């Protein structure tokens, strides 16, 4: 079974601060880590390999230092690593990012399962995973909390919903995004870390993945960010006191004043 796991390097959210002037994340000097949700995807990929045999390829798009995230994934049991990195990718939104990753996956070639974390802790969009499956025209199951059964051609998974979970059967290849309930990620092994230290992740540019230049980076991104701001903190409500008849009238007047 060939498994591809897509990860993102994100700032460690426990020490992220917002620039009060620009209202953007201060990324300088902040430690980068693997997106916590992707850690579950990596673990599930390695468990699938242990269960069914095969190979895990870890893929990321990002600046050159994203190689560190790939090495970490290799230390956790992934077999091969691919970094897609190019100035042309700068400014990509979820559409352009998923297009780029899909192009890289086509170049990797044969695969049965693609695993992603349910969302990234910095952007929180949860769109890239589904985007990849759309670009590749394969089925997707989001918020997977358990892979019940999996064979060469079909998988049965539990998909978390607000009320409980759905059991979904899907043909393979398929893309799954996973939630943290799916497993407890292992710690790296020393042998894995040493192997990772000397490993050489593949590095692909826009040209290598034969991507359409117009679909990349800021130009390929339909999303326009108009404004980012920290929402004003909600002030406490007002409690009306008195008997029911009085406060009902008072409430109506207040609502009238607010023109609701």
């Amino acid at each position, binding site marked *: 079974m060939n498994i591809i796991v897509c990860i993102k390097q994100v700032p460690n959210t426990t020490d992220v601060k917002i620039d009060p002037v620009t209202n953007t994340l201060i990324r300088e000097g902040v430690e980068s880590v693997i997106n916590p949700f992707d850690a579950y995807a990596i673990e599930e990929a390695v468990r699938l390999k242990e269960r069914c045999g095969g190979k895990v390829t870890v893929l990321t798009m990002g600046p050159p230092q994203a190689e560190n995230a790939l090495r970490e994934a290799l230390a956790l049991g992934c077999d091969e690593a691919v970094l897609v990195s190019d100035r042309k990718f700068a400014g990509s939104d979820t559409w352009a990012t998923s297009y780029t990753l899909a192009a890289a996956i086509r170049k990797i070639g044969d695969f049965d399962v693609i695993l992603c974390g349910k969302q990234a802790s910095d952007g929180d969009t949860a769109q890239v995973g589904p985007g990849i499956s759309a670009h590749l025209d394969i089925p997707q199951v989001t918020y997977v909390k358990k892979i019940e059964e999996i064979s060469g051609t079909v998988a049965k998974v539990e998909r978390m919903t607000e009320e409980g979970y759905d059991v979904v059967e899907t043909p393979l290849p398929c893309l799954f995004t996973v939630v943290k309930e799916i497993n407890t990620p292992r*710690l790296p*092994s020393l042998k894995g*870390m*040493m192997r990772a230290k000397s490993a050489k992740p593949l590095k692909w540019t826009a040209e290598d993945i034969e991507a359409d230049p117009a679909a990349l980076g800021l130009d390929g991104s339909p999303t326009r960010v108009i404004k980012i701001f920290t929402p004003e903190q909600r002030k406490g409500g007002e409690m009306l006191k008195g008997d029911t008849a009085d406060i009902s009238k008072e409430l109506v007047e207040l609502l009238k004043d607010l023109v609701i």
Partner: protein
Amino acid sequence: MDYLLTEQQAMIRDLARKIADEKIKPVAAHYDETEEFAWPIMKILADSDLFGVYLPEQYGGLGGGILDMCLVTEELSRACGGIALGYAGTGLGTLPILLYGSEEQKQRFLPAIAGGKKLAAFCITEAEAGSDAGSIKTTARKEGGKYILNGTKQWITNAGEAEIYTVIASTDKSKGVRGASAFIIEKGTKGLTFGKKEKKMGIRASATREVILTDCEVPAENLISREGMGYIIAMKTFDSSRPGVAAQAVGIAQGALDHAVEYSRTRIQFGQPISSFQAIQHMLADMGTQVEAARALVYATARMVDSGARSVAKESAMAKLFASDVAMKVTTDAVQIFGGYGYMREYPVEKYMRDAKITQIYEGTSQIQRNIIAANMIKESIKK
């Protein structure tokens, strides 16, 4: 302080620290209370390859030495000296095979230990042979291609949990210590049973039991080295393992110190944190200095062992003596800094004090260490 560790050693230390912080700290009080053996933690240590850091690569290890083992033991002991002993006790049980085992024995036993699939235990102590290790009563009688062992070993760390036991028994009583021999006995061997689990003051997550040998048949190929080498094997094993006990002591002391420093910053008395009082500051300063001095001695000794030095008995004894005394002193002072809270089992520091005490007792009491140190000093002086 920078101890000029290799990149690999720093990696080992960091991973052990991560496991200690993330996996052991949250469960340390539970295992102390229940006295259960922390198998889930042993599994994590195994999966992380930490059991093999000091074993040669050809047997599935990482090719490091005693210093590497000390780094792991110290970091794990910062979180729990009892759980760390499942690891360190395996090291002790493994050393006789590593130091004196035949190539065939190493190939047979070391890979499973390096991979953490099997724990080991070292069995020398008996009811009437503690510090006086030469007076063991367990016997091994050769019969054809096997030895028949009879006797009871006491207070054996990892007993019942381990799969591999290295046992010192007398093959010739008339020769005293020169009649002792070392054997490898696997769990499941007929005649090998275990006594009840001991209830202890500290290191309660560690399993301590009797190992009972009743006409236990051990194949002759499980004899380590040759007959009569048992006492030498045991003493050389201790020379290499004592830095490990010392590292456990350093870890316990550091763990207690970390708690004490943090608590002193947050505990308000007389309208200010108690860390602002010189009385507390000076205690912390002494504790920090003692721990660092102990660590420096332990690492230097471990490096000396790893360099292949001919005799390390004196230095190993010094490291264990000093570090265990530091652990007792520092953990006692940590309880003092916590005051009444420190005495309560709801707070973490009294456990460190209970755990520290054993480091002054096992693998040779502090008094025996002084005997070894002095004997070597006098011997060196005569040779001059």
